[in-house]
C-alpha cells in the first residue's frame, strides 16, 4: 500500500487539485451560470502563491490564502461586470477573463517571469494538507446543496424570473457563486504551484477549461459528487490508457461525446437513477411506482379534478 502510494503520489495530488478546479466550474452551473472564471482564478491563485513564496518566503497557508482572497474579490467584480449577461455570452465573457489573465502572465515582466514563468516556489505543503483542504471544501459544498441556500440556488437555476418574483435576490446569489468559484479555482492553482514549485503561462492555459468541463460533463454537473467522479476518471485515465499510446486523445474525445449525448446528467445521474430503480423495485410499489415515472400529462385528469374539489370548496367558504 505504502509503495503504491509513493509511486502514485503525483496522481493523487492531481486528483484533488483537478477536483477543486472542476468544482470552480460546477458551483456556478448549479445556479445556472455558465462561467469559466474559475480557470482565470486558478491562474490568479497559482501566480500569487508563486510570487509570495519566492519573494517573501511566506508560509503556504498565507501564499494560498492571499490568492484565494484576491480571486474571490476578482470574482465579485467580474460578477458585477457581467451581471446583464447570461448563457453563451456569459460563458464567452468568462473565457475572455481567463485568457486575459494568461496574457497578463506572459507579459508580466519580472513579476510573473514572462513566458518561462516562475521557478523555485519551495514550500512545506504536503499531500496530506491538500487532501484535508479538499475534504473540508467538499463538506462545505455538500452542506450548501441542502438547506435554504441550496434551495435558493436551485430556484435561480430552474427559473430566475420566478425566483426573483418570489423575493430571491437572483443577482446576489449569482455574485456569491462567482466569489465561491473564484476562491475554489485560486485554491487549486495555489496548491498546484506549491506542490510543483513552478508555474508558467502554459500551465494555466486554455487546456484547463477543457479538463474541468470534461470532468463535469462526464461526472455530472449538478452535484459535487459528479465533479469528484469526473476528477478521478480523467486524472487516472491517462495512466490506464498508456497502452493505446498516441490514440489517448481520441479515446478522450469519444468518452466525452458519448457522455454528452447519451448521459446528459453524467455518471452521477446514471448512478442515482439506478439506485432509485433498485429502491423502487425493492418496495414493490403497486401502480403508483409506474405513474411517478410517467410524464405528468399522462395522469388521469378525472381523479385530479375530484381531488381538487375539496380545497376549493374550503377556499370559498
Amino acid at each position, binding site marked *: 500500500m505504502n509503495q503504491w502510494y509513493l509511486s502514485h503520489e503525483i496522481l493523487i495530488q492531481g486528483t484533488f487539485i483537478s477536483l477543486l478546479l472542476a468544482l470552480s466550474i460546477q458551483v456556478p452551473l448549479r445556479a445556472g451560470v455558465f462561467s469559466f472564471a474559475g480557470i482565470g482564478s486558478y491562474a490568479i491563485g497559482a501566480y500569487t502563491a508563486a510570487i509570495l513564496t519566492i519573494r517573501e518566503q511566506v508560509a503556504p497557508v498565507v501564499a494560498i490564502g492571499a490568492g484565494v482572497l484576491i480571486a474571490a474579490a476578482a470574482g465579485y467584480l467580474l460578477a458585477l461586470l457581467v451581471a446583464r449577461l447570461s448563457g453563451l455570452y456569459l460563458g464567452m465573457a468568462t473565457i475572455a477573463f481567463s485568457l486575459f489573465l494568461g496574457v497578463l502572465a506572459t507579459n508580466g515582466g519580472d513579476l510573473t517571469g514572462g513566458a518561462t514563468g516562475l521557478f523555485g516556489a519551495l514550500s512545506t505543503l504536503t499531500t496530506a494538507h491538500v487532501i484535508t483542504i479538499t475534504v473540508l471544501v467538499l463538506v462545505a459544498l455538500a452542506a450548501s446543496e441542502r438547506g435554504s441556500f441550496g*434551495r435558493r440556488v*436551485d430556484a435561480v437555476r430552474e427559473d430566475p424570473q*420566478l425566483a426573483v418574483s418570489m*423575493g430571491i435576490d437572483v443577482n446576489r446569489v449569482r455574485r456569491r457563486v462567482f466569489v465561491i468559484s473564484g476562491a475554489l479555482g485560486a485554491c487549486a492553482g495555489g496548491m498546484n504551484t506549491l506542490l510543483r514549485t513552478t508555474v508558467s503561462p502554459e500551465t494555466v492555459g486554455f487546456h484547463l477549461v477543457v479538463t474541468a468541463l470534461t470532468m463535469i460533463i462526464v461526472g455530472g454537473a449538478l452535484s459535487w459528487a459528479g465533479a469528484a467522479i469526473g476528477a478521478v476518471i480523467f486524472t487516472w485515465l491517462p495512466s490506464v490508457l498508456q497502452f493505446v499510446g498516441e490514440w489517448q486523445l481520441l479515446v478522450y474525445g469519444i468518452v466525452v461525446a458519448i457522455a454528452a449525448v447519451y448521459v446528459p446528467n453524467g455518471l452521477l445521474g446514471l448512478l442515482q437513477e439506478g439506485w432509485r430503480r433498485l429502491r423502487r423495485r425493492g418496495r414493490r410499489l403497486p401502480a403508483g411506482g409506474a405513474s411517478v415515472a410517467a410524464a405528468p400529462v399522462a*395522469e388521469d385528469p378525472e381523479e*385530479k379534478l375530484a381531488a*381538487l374539489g*375539496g380545497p*376549493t370548496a374550503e377556499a370559498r367558504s
Partner: protein
Amino acid sequence: MLQIDDLHVRYATAEAVRGVSASATPGRITLVLGANGAGKSSTLRAAAGLVTPHAGRVTLEGRDVTGLAPHKIVRHGMVLVPEGRRVFAPLSVEENLVLGGYTATREKSAEVLAQVYEMFPILGQRRAGAAGLLSGGEQQMLAFGRALMSSPRVIMLDEPSMGLAPTMVESVLGAVRGMADAGIAVLLVEQNAEMGLEIADEVVAMARGEVVFSGPAEQARSNASVLLAFLGEAALVE
C-alpha cells in the same frame, strides 16, 4: 393597498402600456380585462418591478415602490404569480412552498405553511412529491400557496386559469376569491372575462395599452357596449 398611477411601459419598439391607472384594496378583487396584447401582463410586470416603467408611479400602502428591484417589492408585501403555472419542477411541493416563504422568519414560515396546507389539502398530501408531477390545476394551487407563503398584503395573479379545463378554472377562481376573503388585495388579470366577472369587485378594462373602462364590477357587467367594443363578442356570448 396597491395604487398604480399613469403607468407607461416601453419596450424597444413599442409602448405596451400608456398611462394606465388601477388599484387593489384589501379584501377585494380588481379584475384587469383585455384581449391579447392589451398590456395587462406588462402592467403587472412593471408593478412587480420585473420591468422598469418608463413613467408613472406604483405605490404600496403609501410607499413609492416604482422601479424598485422585484425582490425588494416582495419584502414590501406584494407578490406576483406569473402566468403559465410556473413551479420549480424538480423540487418537492414543500420545497417550493418553503422557497416562497424565503422572506419570512422561520417560525412565521412554518405557521403560514400549515395554513396553506389547510387551504389546499392536496398540497399537503403531495408535499414530498416533485412539483413537476402535479396536474395543471394542482400546480396553479401550488403557485398560489407559494405566493401566500410570503404573507402578502397584495397579490397579483397573471392569467391563473390559462390552459385549464373549465371545471378546474372554477376551482382556481374559487381559490382567488378565498384569498381576497382572507383580507388580501387581489389584482387579477384574466382573458376569460365571463369567469373573471363572476368573482370580481372592481374592473379595469384595457385595450391597446390604455384603460377603456374602470369601475365597479356590476357596472361592467351591465356595460355591454364597453365589453363588446373592446373585448369582442366572445366576452358576452353565454
